């Protein structure tokens, strides 16, 4: 029998429905795989063995009663630890939430359960999703399954590594400036940031609320599409979720890409982009053209200001969102300090890591009296200009193609003393968050034994064309079938 780990989401679901294997057997096989590789990669902060077996048994019981099974029946998944799971610790990679068990599920958690998915664990991430390497986690770094001395990217590095190493068939991450797409690229998997508003953020622990979006990570475009289909849709519990036309995973596989107009923004193919990465992206554009798409160079002149805009707006929102960690309602309370204010200051001092403190400080400064207009308001206006660049480009093109990350995975510790260099890892992904548009990263090459990611961006709520282009490319190439040899 073909091993159960590394099977596709759809294949696993079909095997459960046909009775070839039980959901319990699939769960057991993946728990065994976790036990085998987790000591090397540390992708998961918690493995929920009992809960997973109970969920699997519920799926098997439903089948034996002859009930129709959900679209993800028996599929093993992991959730980034910023996604709330009722009764299961949700730490956000932070000391300040060590051991905190939410009293409710995020909407995506509930939707995956309803679809029959089996949650095997919570995935490591940079503290409060702030970072690009998963080294900012208070619980230690995750290692890249392709090379244990390299980072998996971040902030959803645990979600990416778990999928790449075969611990789970799919996972959810969150993307505020690239945190799904960049780790997907560095781990050689598929990662989609949906349009802002496509997926409910209820129960996603907030970092920068106007940019955060939950999305799927998987080993193929079809699997990512199936996960998106299960979690998307308007939600009364998130007033920014949008009642958009439904997304159909099936439609992604229909039709071809003949006549698809592909734009290649020159700002993302030059300075700062590694030569091997740029070459792989150029080859991918040629591959799309050989399938009938047309490609042309274009420009997003304001996009280069995305980094500055992001590092004003995201910290500003974070400084407000993270005010809730005050040692009162949840999480860590430090007994140092005098009175209520002293307790709050001591708790935050003990609970937050350096990068989180930096963003709170920058955000508080940018919002403070006398600086608001110069920083925050100006950045919001530049954000409008960035959106207009994309609007203009999408009048001429259906999708835009760039590298996902300027380089392949860098070394653990290589950039941890240089936070600015770390932030440059996101230059290609930040603009999509500014504009709110969807973007996917798919594998498009290898360099030094490490995966290269191709980013495809599209119009708001046009995940279908984005994923159709990704699917067509994937079907014509073999990059997504490469598997890391995780050290034992």
């Amino acid at each position, binding site marked *: 029998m073909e091993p159960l780990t590394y099977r596709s989401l759809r294949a696993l679901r079909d095997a459960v429905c046909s009775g070839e294997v039980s959901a319990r057997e699939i769960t057991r096989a993946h728990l065994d795989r976790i036990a085998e590789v987790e000591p090397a990669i540390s992708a998961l902060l918690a493995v929920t063995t009992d809960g997973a077996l109970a969920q699997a048994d519920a799926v098997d019981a439903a089948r034996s009663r002859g009930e129709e099974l959900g679209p993800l029946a028996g599929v093993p998944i992991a959730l980034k630890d910023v996604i709330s799971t009722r009764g299961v610790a949700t730490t956000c990679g932070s000391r300040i939430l060590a051991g905190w068990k939410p*009293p409710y599920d995020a909407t995506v958690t509930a939707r995956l359960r309803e679809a029959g998915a089996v949650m095997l664990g919570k995935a490591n991430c940079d503290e409060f999703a702030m970072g690009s390497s998963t080294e900012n986690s208070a619980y230690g770094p995750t290692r890249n399954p392709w090379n244990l001395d390299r980072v998996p990217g971040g902030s959803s590095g645990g979600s990416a590594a778990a999928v790449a190493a075969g611990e789970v068939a799919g996972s959810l991450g969150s993307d505020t400036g690239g945190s799904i797409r960049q780790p997907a690229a560095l781990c050689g998997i598929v990662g989609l940031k949906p349009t802002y508003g496509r997926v409910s953020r209820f129960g996603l622990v907030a970092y920068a609320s106007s940019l955060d979006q939950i999305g799927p990570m998987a080993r193929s475009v079809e699997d990512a599409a199936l996960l998106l289909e299960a979690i998307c849709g308007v939600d009364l519990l998130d007033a*920014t979720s949008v009642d958009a036309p439904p997304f159909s995973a099936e439609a992604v596989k229909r039709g071809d890409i003949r006549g698809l107009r592909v734009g290649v923004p020159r700002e993302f193919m030059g300075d700062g982009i590694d030569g091997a990465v740029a070459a792989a992206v150029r080859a991918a554009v040629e591959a799309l053209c050989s399938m009938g798409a047309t490609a042309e160079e274009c420009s997003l002149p304001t996009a280069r200001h995305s980094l500055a805009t992001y590092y004003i707006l995201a910290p500003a929102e974070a400084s407000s969102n993270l005010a809730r960690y005050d040692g009162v309602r949840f999480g*860590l309370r430090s007994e140092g300090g005098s*009175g209520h*204010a002293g307790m709050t*200051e*001591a708790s*935050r001092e003990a609970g937050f890591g350096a990068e989180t403190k930096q963003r709170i400080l920058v955000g508080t400064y940018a919002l403070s009296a006398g600086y608001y207009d110069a920083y925050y308001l100006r950045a919001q206006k530049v954000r409008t200009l960035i959106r207009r660049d994309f609007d203009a480009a999408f009048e001429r093109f259906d999708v835009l193609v760039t590298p996902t990350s300027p380089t392949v995975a860098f070394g653990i510790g290589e950039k941890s003393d240089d*936070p600015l260099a770390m932030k440059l890892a996101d230059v290609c992904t930040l603009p999509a968050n500014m504009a709110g548009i969807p973007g996917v990263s798919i594998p498009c090459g290898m360099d030094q034994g490490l995966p290269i990611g191709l980013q495809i961006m599209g119009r708001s709520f046009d995940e279908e064309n984005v994923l159709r282009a990704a699917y067509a490319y994937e079907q014509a190439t073999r990059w997504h079938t490469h598997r890391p040899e995780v050290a034992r």
Partner: protein
Amino acid sequence: MPLMLDDVRRVAALARLELTDDEAAAQLRRINELMERFESLRELDVEGIEPTAHSAPIHNVLREDAARPSLARDEVLAGAPDAREGCFAVPLILEAS
């Protein structure tokens, strides 16, 4: 204009962050490094440009004003560092002078 150590101290107090001296010095260096990047935004002419607060095509969301169950109080309080008699317990807010 780069920030000074006093600025970091002032902002840290606003954000209820107690920083050690070493932390404050390290944060000052990193923040100034990052804020140098912000200067490029001054090149852009933003006269008359509307600010974007978020990108979703949404303005007001209304729903029925219907009652629904809230979270169970004991489950919510279970996550608190200190809870007594159905309430969050905190240190003194006003101290006797």
